[in-house]
């Protein structure tokens, strides 16, 4: 029996195509001959594998056909977990972002370099900072010192010409001879004299002080003093706005002095709400002088200046004059101070020179002896 014939027999046997007689003979052969038995098993396995392979190919073909009908791209779009826009932006544009960032850093560094920022050492920055703190304190000290200085530097001169130790300015509150001045002017006074523009001196006494707002009220108690004419100015109770034109008068020298400027800030040194900052040239000796608006209303009392800044002076707000006047009135039955109020004063429609001429008679040099 040839191999071919054997294979054919095996196939027919496995397919069940053998006749009864053939099958019995073949099974007998299979039992006797182990090789034949092996061949049968082997053939069955191999052809089975071919068949399974065919089925697999068929299945894969079917699956591929099904797959063709799915819109995979749309699904991919839907199912991709999209990172946050920041991450996406970074992924898509990280090279551009990096370049932009490098350029920015380079630009900043080169700007800093060319502006010479790197030349300063850290140490100098530190001292600069401390100087700033220092300077804040110094400003405060300076202001105090300036207040002093407005008086002090005049000392020698007046020691020669007059026996007074301090000189300041003041202005009349009433016809009866109440005069308001700065507290620091009269602070250590043993005796006080006031001198008007004509050079007439009168003895005065201290009736009220208010150190916190740098206000003092004195009264002429000289027998020679005959009283004043009606005051040409009013006292303004309300606040004055920044930018308002102002004038001031006083006696930084023996002669009458006039200066004009404007309100530059609604608060004084370091935000002191009781004072204005005034941009007006002031000199020592003008402390206690009046600050008037263009209509001739008293809006404040000159109290000091800032040393660091040109023409930055401070003036106590006029509302504190009202307070002081009230306190004086309340303390005594005799000393009643009534301040002129109202929007229009006798000065309102006068020219500046006429205003000053009128004011001259009501502004005094305050001479302090101690």
């Amino acid at each position, binding site marked *: 029996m040839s*191999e*071919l014939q054997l*294979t*054919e027999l095996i196939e027919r046997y496995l397919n069940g195509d053998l006749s009864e007689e053939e099958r019995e003979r073949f099974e007998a052969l299979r039992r006797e001959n182990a090789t034949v038995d092996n061949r049968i098993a082997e053939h069955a396995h*191999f*052809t089975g*594998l*071919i*068949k*399974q*392979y*065919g*089925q*697999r*190919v068929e*299945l*894969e073909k*079917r*699956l*591929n056909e*099904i*797959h063709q*009908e*799915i819109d*995979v*791209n749309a*699904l*991919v779009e*839907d*199912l*991709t*977990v999209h990172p946050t826009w920041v991450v996406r932006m970074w992924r898509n544009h990280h090279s551009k972002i990096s370049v932009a960032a490098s350029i920015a850093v380079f630009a900043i560094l080169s700007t800093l370099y060319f502006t010479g920022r790197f030349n300063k050492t850290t140490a100098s920055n530190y001292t600069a900072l401390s100087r700033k703190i220092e300077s804040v304190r110094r400003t405060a000290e300076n202001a105090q010192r300036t207040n002093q200085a407005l008086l002090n530097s005049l000392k020698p001169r007046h020691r020669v010409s007059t026996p007074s130790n301090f000189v300041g300015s003041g202005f009349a509150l009433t016809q009866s001879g109440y005069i308001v001045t700065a507290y620091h002017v009269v602070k250590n006074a043993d005796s006080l004299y006031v001198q008007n523009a004509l050079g007439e001196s009168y003895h005065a006494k201290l009736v009220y002080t208010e150190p916190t707002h740098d206000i003092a009220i004195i009264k002429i108690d000289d027998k020679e003093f005959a009283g004043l004419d009606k005051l040409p100015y009013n006292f303004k109770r309300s606040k004055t706005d920044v930018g308002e034109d102002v004038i001031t008068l006083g006696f930084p020298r023996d002669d009458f002095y006039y200066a004009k400027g404007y309100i530059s800030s609604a608060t004084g040194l370091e935000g002191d709400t009781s004072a204005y900052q005034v941009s007006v040239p002031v000199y020592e000796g003008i402390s206690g002088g009046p600050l008037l608006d263009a209509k001739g209303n008293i809006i404040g009392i000159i109290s000091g200046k800032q040393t660091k800044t040109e023409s930055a002076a401070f003036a106590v707000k006029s509302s504190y004059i009202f307070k002081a006047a009230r306190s004086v009135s309340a303390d005594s039955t005799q000393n009643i101070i009534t301040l002129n109020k109202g929007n229009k004063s006798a000065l309102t429609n006068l020219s500046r020179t006429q205003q000053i001429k009128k004011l001259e008679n009501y502004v005094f040099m305050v001479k302090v002896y101690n």
Partner: protein
Amino acid sequence: MNSSAAPTDSEVVFGILNNSETVLKRVYVAYFPMVLQLIINNNGTADDAKDIYQEAIIVLYNKVKGGNFELSSKLKTFLYSVCRKLWLKRLNQMSRYGGDIKDFEEYLPAEDDTETNSERDLQFTKMEGALKLLGEPCKTIIEDYYINNMSMQEICERFGYTNADNAKTQKYKCLQRLKKLFFQQN
């Protein structure tokens, strides 16, 4: 029952046993997005998803056909777990696995029954290679006879052999060569 909705799990089992074309299609369409989501969000492409998913469907198919498929979990979970495992294996082979996989479904702990499957896959690959090397007309004769169950008579007519014996001889030679090619491969 709506044909576009996912078939019930028992429907799928019976459908596969009955060679139902529609059930196969419905199960395929129903769970492909889940697997696509898994693959494309874990360093894979849509084509990877297709390969993995078809492999998993074949695993299911063979299990059901082999009669040893028990619905111990949801079919969805089963397919997801198989795909997950296959994809992890693939990622490892490609050295693309970062040790972290982003999951979208619950999954079963890995079982080792995909091993027998890959053994069979290996044999199929060998068979495919052997058939390719076999050349025509042997390949078609073998396929027609052993896969498509055509009779020798039909093959005779198709290839124009003068008698059935010539065809039988030819088929025998072809089978011998195929065996030789098959076992020569490693």
